[in-house]
């Protein structure tokens, strides 16, 4: 797999970029946006290959010397900047500027790829501005970002923006079936969770992650002692922070499916289609507003976790509340009761 070929489901984007190369209208700055795992880097590298390729300029053969060097990230005229310790610093951008102020080694394009552009410090971002507006010679700078809203408006306004397209669920599902040997049902669920991102789907389709997803879902369905299960889940997730994000996603999409079922939506729109019967049964137990409340609780927890809250505490509290879904008001009563009786004695 190489170049544009590996970009399943992004045919329109690929076509447009190829068109730009063929018609000689390559812009000097692109901002490629898309959620993590949506293929931003793949697209950027494929684009670089297409620029450098000697065999099939514009489409990339994937076999010529240039294509291979780009693939291996050691083409002398391609510079890739990645966050160093979480941020991209001004010195990294200065290096890029120095390299871009020189002629290309091989006399053709100069390509800069900035991964995680939103992590640029204010100084770094500002010092990129002039270069980004008017680089000399045949230069292309590609900024990749999952959260473009965090970029300076002055940066964004200098770039042509390319948004990765969400890949249709069916397409991802059949890919997973083919490449990872998943059953059709599981593949569809994973595709639903991946939310149109192939990279994310590949990640979720890994064995341990699959097992984790399954475990969370059975915990959500299970009846006996939800509280203890909640505590155990919280403890496990606490030990495995990298699984945290998709675990919350499993929970929140499950709740969302319940809600939509309760409101009378089709089976077709459910993420967890394979568990339709269980979902249906559960959705009858709770009122829509209670489910909405629960969704909101997950959102609150997700925000707290991104804001550096204590992971274990947040998870404990969240899973508790979820374990007691329909009687969250009663739970708060218990809290009040416990407090007042304590102060009385």
């Amino acid at each position, binding site marked *: 797999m190489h170049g544009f070929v590996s970009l399943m489901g992004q045919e329109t984007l690929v076509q*447009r970029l190829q*068109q*730009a190369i063929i018609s*000689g*209208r*390559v*812009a000097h700055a692109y901002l490629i946006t898309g*959620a993590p795992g949506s293929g931003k880097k793949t697209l950027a590298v494929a684009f670089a290959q297409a620029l450098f390729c000697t065999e099939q300029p514009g489409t990339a053969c994937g076999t010529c010397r240039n294509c291979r060097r780009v693939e291996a990230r050691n083409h002398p005229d391609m510079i890739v900047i990645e966050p160093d310790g979480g941020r991209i610093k*001004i010195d990294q*951008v200065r290096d890029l*500027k120095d390299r871009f102020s020189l002629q290309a080694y091989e006399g053709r394009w100069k390509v800069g790829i900035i991964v995680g552009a939103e992590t640029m410090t204010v100084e770094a971002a*500002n*010092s*990129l*501005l*002039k270069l980004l507006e008017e680089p000399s010679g*045949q230069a292309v700078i590609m900024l990749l970002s999952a*959260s473009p*809203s965090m970029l300076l*408006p*002055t940066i964004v*306004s*200098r*770039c*042509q923006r390319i948004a990765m*397209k969400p890949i249709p669920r069916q397409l991802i599902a059949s890919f997973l079936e083919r490449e990872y040997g998943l059953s059709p049902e599981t593949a569809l669920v994973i595709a639903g969770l991946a*939310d149109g991102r192939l990279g994310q789907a590949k990640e979720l389709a890994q064995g341990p992650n699959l097992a984790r997803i399954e475990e969370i879902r059975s915990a959500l369905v299970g009846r*006996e*002692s*939800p*509280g*203890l299960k909640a505590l155990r889940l919280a403890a496990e997730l606490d030990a495995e922070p990298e699984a945290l*994000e998709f675990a*919350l996603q499993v929970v*929140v*999409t499950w709740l969302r499916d319940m809600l*939509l079922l309760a*409101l009378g*939506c089709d089976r077709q*729109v459910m993420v967890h289609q394979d568990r339709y019967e269980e979902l249906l049964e559960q959705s009858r137990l709770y*009122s*829509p*507003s209670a489910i909405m409340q629960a*969704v*909101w609780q997950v*959102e609150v927890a*997700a*925000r707290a976790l*991104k804001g550096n809250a204590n992971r274990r505490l947040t998870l404990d509290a969240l899973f*508790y509340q979820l*374990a*007691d879904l329909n*009687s969250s008001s*009663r739970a708060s009563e*218990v809290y009040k*009761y416990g407090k007042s*009786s*304590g102060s*009385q*004695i």
Partner: protein
Amino acid sequence: MSYLSLYRKYRPQRFEDVVGQEPVVRTLQNALRRGRVAHAYMFSGPRGTGKTSLARLLAKGLNCRQGPTPEPCNVCSNCRLISDGYSMDVVEIDGASNRGIDEIRDLRENVKFAPTEGGYKVYIIDEVHMLTTDAFNALLKTLEEPPEYVVFVLATTEPHKVPKTIASRCQHFQFHNFTTEQVVMRLQQVAAAEGLDVEPAALSLIARHAAGGMRDALAILDQAVSFQGNRIEERHIAELLGVVPEEQIGKLLNHIAGGERLAALTLLQEIIGGGADVQQLTKDCISFLRELMLARTGKIGAAQQQAALDAAGGQWPNLSSLPMERILGLIDVLAGALADMRWVSPIWLPLEMAVIRGCGEYPQEAARQAAVIQETVISELRERIQRLEKLMASLLAAQGVPGEGEKADVLVDALGDGVKPKAAEQQPTSSGKGTQRTAIPSSAADRAVEFQDLLARWGEIAERLRQERQAPVEAFLRESKPLGFDEDGRLVLVFPRVKEFHKVSLEQPRNKEVLQRVLSHIAERPVEVVCYFEDEIDQTNGFVQTAGNALGEEQPSKGSDVIAPERPASDAGNPALEAALRIFGGTVQEVRCEAERG
């Protein structure tokens, strides 16, 4: 020469090419014409409004062979050098990269050398807000009194980050965002020059999306051309920007406004499945509602307003009848969703929830909740009544057997108009013992309620007394504290020991009569008054304290009849225990109170 972006290619090269920013352009041209060019300018404004372009134009105007001139020729060697960026006399400095004091020191050294080609040396410091404090301060002296052939232009998007001392040495020009019309105009010029065939609707979509930044607009046009070729339609732009057509948005909002939850959710799924940018979609929904709101308030042009309302009325009946509060509510909900998208994955989830919320209440759900609330209220009230009844029974038991005769007596009292003189003369102590007078005009709960009503209207009493020119009575009354009605329906007033004078005065028949008349009027039944000292209250057996400290400063309840809140003594029925069992399962081994150990 490689391909140049449209926004670089069509950077204004003459003053008349500049769209908008008339005050700035006119001032600069006049300065050039009259030879009154200042030595330092500061250009500030949002991205893509022409700061750098005008700085270069100014440099050209100064250094043109025919210059200084308000219309640089663009053909002489100086003009061309400046256009191509090779001029020795126009130094463009990237303030964000060369931000240290050393770079500014270099600049100070170089300022000394006279211009080589033209008459002026122009220093353009772009992104000047990123200079360090030291750098700024090193620049101060040079900026204030540079050699006569030097002109500084500082350009920045963030003028508030520039020190006051710098700003005060410059002529400050503020650049404004372009209006949509101005952007469209410029786009038309560029499209014509490039030989493009662009739909007007496409241009206005670009302009709206660019939000006032000319560079943004030209970048989008550029992208469209590179992807689409020379013929560009609105749908190409919409696709490029991931914008959902207005028609779809209107339809979605129409469903929401009509509370058609299922239709709205299905449509939303469809739109998202089609690859729309969810954040953009949310923003577009908000601005759609905003336009509707503005049309409603008549804050936009009449024609535009009518068009918006017509569109809403014809295609989307639910929207045209949407009340203002719901528009505001929907905007609120959507804005909340937009904020949540930063944290929540999948990203469309907040929007979906917002749609559900926006559709309004769930009818069955609301009914169910109402029933639950009603039930809780009723059971609470029942509990309270039971408690009061129990209390009453215990009080009655303490006072002996209830006498039927007394009840009749009170009844007579109630029938008689005005005040019963006999009661007025009664000694408080004798009635306080209350061994015989056990009949009650109404239940304890009723009395409490009545007393609360009276307290609520306490101000009226004082008011009325003053109106009746009975200010002294009001003054005496003010020192007392109403405690409640006793079981004879008399109002109990208490005085501190030190206010004996006031108590005695109020007890004088004349004063008391006035007060009772007023009270009776307000309570709409004959009311008698009894007065006690605070320390006597304990002895007044048979008095139910209801709201002793509702008025005035709080008073520790001395009455013996404080109702203790019921606590479950046994394990059964303990809600905390039940909840714990429900959450964790298992069986109860032992119940122990944490504090008992300590």
